[in-house]
């Protein structure tokens, strides 16, 4: 205070910055512009994510043929925006259609980690759900959900292509509730669902 060479000037740049920052933060809070942008853009992204689900072109066992049949003429899964890609970098859905052996546990975890967020996993068939008829085997994991999180389970050995299409529909129902408002009719969405919350 007295003569220690410090400059106690009225103008302090830090104080100015703090003041301006507080003012802008208050303005942002007051205008809630973040909420507006978040909600509107969030709904658009939500629509786009549930309308273009690219599964990974991964055929493990019997269900792979039903997956192929679902993409063929009679059951036309492409009508609902399901295009199969071969590279995990460009996929949204990991469609696990078969038993996971100990030898394949590492590769499928790597495939899952190679896929960019947001991503979902569908366990198709009994083998992927619980090991299926091979639950006693010495080389089979009891379901893919022991190594990666699963969003939708499609039972059946193998499930029919209609069941697969319905499974994708169930996944869309799950996606549309992300960030939904509390009071929609759906029972298990009393609170807004956050991705990765399951």
């Amino acid at each position, binding site marked *: 205070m007295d003569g220690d060479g410090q400059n106690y000037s009225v103008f302090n740049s830090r104080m100015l910055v703090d003041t301006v920052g507080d003012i802008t933060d208050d303005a942002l809070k007051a205008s809630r512009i973040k909420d507006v942008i978040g909600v509107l853009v969030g709904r658009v992204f939500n629509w786009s994510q549930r309308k273009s689900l690219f599964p990974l072109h991964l055929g493990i066992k019997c269900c792979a043929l039903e997956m192929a049949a679902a993409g063929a003429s009679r059951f036309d899964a492409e009508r609902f925006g399901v295009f199969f890609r071969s590279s995990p970098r460009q996929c949204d859905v990991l469609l696990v259609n078969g038993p996971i052996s*100990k*030898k394949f*546990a590492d590769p499928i*975890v790597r495939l899952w980690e190679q896929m960019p967020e947001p991503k979902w996993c569908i366990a198709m068939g009994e083998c992927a759900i619980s090991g299926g008829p091979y639950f*006693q*085997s*010495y*080389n089979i994991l009891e379901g893919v959900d022991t190594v990666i999180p699963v969003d939708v389970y499609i039972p059946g050995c193998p499930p029919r292509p209609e069941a697969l299409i319905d499974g994708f529909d169930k996944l869309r129902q799950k996606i549309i509730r992300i960030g939904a408002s509390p009071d929609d009719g759906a029972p298990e969405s009393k609170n807004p669902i956050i991705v990765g919350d399951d």
Partner: protein
Amino acid sequence: MANALSSMDGVNAEVSERTSGTNPRNVVSVDCASENWRQLAECLRVEHGVDYCSMITGIHWPEGGAEKNWEVVYHFMRMGISNPPVVEGMVQPIITDPSTVEGADVPLEIEVRIALPETRDPKVASVQDIWVGADWNEKETWDLVGIDFEGHVGMRRVLQPHETPAGFHPLQKQHKLRYHDFEEMYDDAQGFLRKPSDAGKIK
């Protein structure tokens, strides 16, 4: 052919009647001692023209007694197949009517059973160089049953993971099925303790 094979020492062959659905068929079933097996195999390939090794089965008989504790069953076929001839630069496919062929051309099934005594490391001679088709069959038999083949080049795990502990051959009878006898074979089936096989390596 059965008599010819029976003339060899340690080999005992007869023709057994097998039924398949509605119509019967004949199979030359041979019992062979493990030390005579290599000689018998060369005889089959060279003299009797057995050109096709169908499958190799290894069986573990814990209660089979001292002399037949392990068993290796070979299934061969005599197809009598040769490359189709080339006539003026065009291949003439071989069209054989199986109802007309006779003699050594008749397609024949041969089943060779080799009983092994009780031992920790059962082994028989490898026929990998005689029938290339036996190569991966022997690999699989060693992988699953644990019967080793002497002279087999490049023996490795084919069906089980490469990092499977040595000496673990699941088709041996002391390994029980999961949930039947719970303790064994439940070696971290969920993979919780599992490390990635290529951990630490640069991909």
